[in-house]
């Protein structure tokens, strides 16, 4: 079907100009490595520039080392940074590959339509591209109000555009990071403890005696300081209990691996709670002093015995008891990890609640080796007028359908963009920054319908990600190593700040996110919100309020401050009021009860794979972030495509061979755009398959990663929505194998 906006694969369209710039830059793009006799350069001949990483959201601080010719040679962690302790992860170390990726967006692009109706991108000046975005924003404001301009954002560049939209009068923004990722645990921990677990999470893994991981694969997710702390915990002899249908890296390092049947986790957690309660193993003093609802909970879990859970989870009762006792004997120094990407089955807030309750029974919140009290530095806002009050925000698109959502819900923003959904408020245009929606959101048909429905899409990115193919205007952003950004001030054990400054000038005609936001703002008459010529002025002003300066921060990169909020942990018997309705940790959630949700978690049975289908489980590889890094040459060298993990029994049944290419088809008849290689491995159950997320890119301009591997997201068309906070449960999708290339019908984006 032709839509108003054809998906444009940047390299194949707009022929002349785009192809020319590709050639022009070949010599520059490839000379970083491989030039003759260019061996290691000693550190004394390199100049370090302070930065913090943007390859993932952990934002580790480091130093970009620049040689005398002006090339970034390497990026090394900052020793004083609690996010990385001087050791970046492979993505941070390979961050330099993002700068020298020859496929980068180099100039602004504008969508044009030929006389025959076909569309292409034309290279444009910044002046023209910015005018186009600003004029559209003016038009939407006049016709529909500023609220009708939506924003999909992630990371520091997203924050720049968020400021622009707030100044303009819109709060119609959403991040995949919430509803497509960690939202359920935010709502669950907030309703239990009146506090968020934050990022980095306030898990005291360093000092724990027992680490409990449920579908959280530390070591495959490289949440840097947590990986480091898990390693310290191993040195310290901590017990690690990992629940995963797959032998994850963490599972391989665990004393106890519980190879659970997928979709049954709540039954296991409730059985653990049953054991703690029935055997009197919970921390009685702590529970009595700090929690609300023990009697309700005792009654609630009465029948949820290990024997009951065995029939559901396939984990033997004795193993459930043994692991519950291991937790109790380590208590309160137990980290029941809240996980991060937790949108699985649509009852995820309840599963996260179950984890929060388990942690409370062990008395671990506010205790050494459990959860510490984090503290951040409050960075003063650079002076600007108050934001105008929007007439409606993301909360109102659907009349408050998800009362406990704490941020905008991406799928709701899509639905609000489609007139057919008849949402109370309609979104007419989008800005997108730092997120590759076609690969980061489930239900691609919904995304495509929404993208075809809106009047205008502007995308700001450093790379020709798949999302740029849907844009009317593409704004090429400078990479994080070429720009200033907001001061990092994430809460941690020690309050701290980190600086990001440019190590080199932006390559090509790319510009920093702050500059792009300001330029659009100026065109909208919002100068007072962007009252600076360079973002370094903002940073310097803020740093001076914090008793330091840009000059000092350039030398140290990271600065730590003494805590003001008191100790990291609760003292013995110390009085403490939690920020909940009852002032206590709510084992029984009054908030949930008030909103008509189960106040305590229940196990619900979820659909199982039909015959000849397998549950699709997906996850992370340590050298890649989302779909953002797969074209990065350094990281591509480490992993250039994903594979589909198949148990040998299943491989035998289907006569699949190691390395054989197959297409995947899901329960709704969707077929992957590209084939994926089979990995035959005992590490996965026979009722499931596993894929690393972020591959199967369908934009030829991503020359290395285009068509390599398959996109798990294409197979996720059945989304089970969490009624509490709008999370998008994605693990209820089932795939089967096609060993021959299927006909074009049903395949995504094969136009």
């Amino acid at each position, binding site marked *: 079907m032709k839509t108003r906006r054809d998906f444009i694969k940047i390299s194949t369209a707009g022929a002349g100009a785009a192809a020319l710039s590709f050639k022009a830059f070949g010599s520059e793009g490839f000379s970083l*490595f*491989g030039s*003759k*006799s*260019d*061996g*290691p*350069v*000693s*550190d004394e001949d390199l100049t370090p520039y302070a930065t913090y990483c943007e390859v993932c959201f952990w934002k580790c601080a480091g130093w970009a080392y620049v040689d005398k010719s002006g090339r970034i*040679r*390497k*990026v*090394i*962690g900052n020793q004083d940074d609690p996010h*990385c302790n*001087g*050791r*970046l*992860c*492979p993505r941070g*170390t*390979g961050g*330099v590959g993002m700068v020298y990726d020859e496929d980068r967006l180099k100039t602004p692009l504008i969508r044009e339509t030929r006389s025959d109706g076909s569309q292409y991108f034309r290279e444009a000046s910044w002046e023209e591209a910015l005018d186009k975005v600003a004029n559209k924003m003016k038009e939407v404001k006049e016709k529909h109000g500023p609220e009708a301009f939506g924003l999909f954002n992630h990371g520091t560049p997203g924050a720049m555009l968020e400021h622009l939209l707030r100044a303009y009068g819109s709060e119609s923004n959403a991040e995949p990071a919430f509803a497509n990722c960690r939202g359920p645990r935010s709502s669950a921990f907030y309703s239990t403890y009146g506090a968020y677990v934050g990022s980095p999470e306030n898990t005291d893994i360093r000092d724990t005696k027992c680490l409990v991981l449920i579908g959280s694969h530390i*070591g*495959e997710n*490289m949440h*840097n300081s947590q*990986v*480091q702390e*898990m*390693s310290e915990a*191993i*040195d310290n002899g901590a017990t690690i209990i990992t629940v995963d249908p797959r*032998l994850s*890296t963490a*599972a*391989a*390092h665990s004393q106890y*691996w519980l*190879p659970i049947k997928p979709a049954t986790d709540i039954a296991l957690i409730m059985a653990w709670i049953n054991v703690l309660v029935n055997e009197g193993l919970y921390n009685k003093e702590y529970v009595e002093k700090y929690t609300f609802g023990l009697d309700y909970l005792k009654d609630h879990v009465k029948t949820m015995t290990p024997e009951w859970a065995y029939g559901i989870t396939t984990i033997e009762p004795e193993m459930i008891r043994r692991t519950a006792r291991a937790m109790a004997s380590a208590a309160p120094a137990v980290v029941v990890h809240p996980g991060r990407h937790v949108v699985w089955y649509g009852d995820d807030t309840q599963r996260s609640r179950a984890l929060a309750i388990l942690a409370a029974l062990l008395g671990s919140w506010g205790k050494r080796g459990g959860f510490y009290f984090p503290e951040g530095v409050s960075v003063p806002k650079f002076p600007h007028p108050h934001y105008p009050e929007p007439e409606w925000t993301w909360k109102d698109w659907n009349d408050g359908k998800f009362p406990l959502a704490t941020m905008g819900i991406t799928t709701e923003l899509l639905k609000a963009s489609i007139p057919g959904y008849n949402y109370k408020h309609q979104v007419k245009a989008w800005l997108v920054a730092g997120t590759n929606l076609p690969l980061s959101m489930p239900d691609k048909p919904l995304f495509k319908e929404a993208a075809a429905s809106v009047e205008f899409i502007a995308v700001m990115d450093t790379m020709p990600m798949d999302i740029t193919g849907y844009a009317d205007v593409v704004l090429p952003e400078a990479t994080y190593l070429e720009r200033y950004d907001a001061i990092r001030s994430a809460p941690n054990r020690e309050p701290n700040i980190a600086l990001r400054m440019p190590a080199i000038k932006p390559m090509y005609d790319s510009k920093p996110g702050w500059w792009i936001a300001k330029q659009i703002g100026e065109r909208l008459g919002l100068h007072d919100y962007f009252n600076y010529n360079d973002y370094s002025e903002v940073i310097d002003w803020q740093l001076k309020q914090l008793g330091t300066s840009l000059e000092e921060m350039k030398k140290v990169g990271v600065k730590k401050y003494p805590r003001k909020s008191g100790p990291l942990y609760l003292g013995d018997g110390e009085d403490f009021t939690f920020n909940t309705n009852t002032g206590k940790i709510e084992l029984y959630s009054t908030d949930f009860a008030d909103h008509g949700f189960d106040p305590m978690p229940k196990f619900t049975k979820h659909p199982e794979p039909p015959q000849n289908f397998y549950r699709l489980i997906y996850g992370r590889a*340590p*050298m890649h972030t989302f779909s953002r890094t797969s074209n990065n*040459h*350094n*990281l591509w*060298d*480490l*992993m250039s495509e994903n594979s589909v993990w198949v*148990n040998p029994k299943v491989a035998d049944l289907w006569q699949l061979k190691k390395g054989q290419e197959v297409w995947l088809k899901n329960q709704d008849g969707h077929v992957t755009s590209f084939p994926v290689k089979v990995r035959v*491995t*005992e*590490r*996965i*159950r*026979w009722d499931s398959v596993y894929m690393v997320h972020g591959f199967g890119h369908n934009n030829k301009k991503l020359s290395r990663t285009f068509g390599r591997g398959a996109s798990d997201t294409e197979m996720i068309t059945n989304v089970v929505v969490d009624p509490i906070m709008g999370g998008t449960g994605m693990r209820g999708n089932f795939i089967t194998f096609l060993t021959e290339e299927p006909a074009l019908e049903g395949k995504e984006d094969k136009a």
Partner: protein
Amino acid sequence: MRYAMAIDTNKCVGCGDCVVACQTENNVPHGYCRDWIVESVDGTYPSLSLEFRSERCNHCDNSPCVRCCPTGASHIEEGGIVTVTHNKCIGCGACIESCPYDARYSHPDGYVDKCTFCLHRVQKGQKPACVEVCPTKCLHFGDLDDPNSDVSLAIKDRKWKVLAPEAGTDPQLYFLT
């Protein structure tokens, strides 16, 4: 002095950070590597074990690569570090054939290249780039002759194995199990 490395397989997560840090530190061309990760799985679901190993040149005491080099380009430096003098190497590849660990590759510029234990850093008292970057601190480097070096302390009270001991090369990478 005898430089060696210990790799703690109980902690390695196979992330590949050592590989990319080596690549940026030593300007290793894309598509090549001086160190790499091996994942080995044993057993049947769910009775499984999984080991990750960060591997590289073993800097063998009895190095077949050095013995077979016709020009003397492959040689042993201070502390037993095996290196290749690029401008003496004729790229014949005899050393590549002789190495039981497949630790060498032909550099596109015409010589054979391999791990140097980051000799240029070690000479300045720094650790190899891979050791310095590893998020799990599973790599330990130092002088085996010094009982207080990181590597000596790491292997002191632990079980360890070396790879392909049957090759008789006396390898100097110790995998802690």
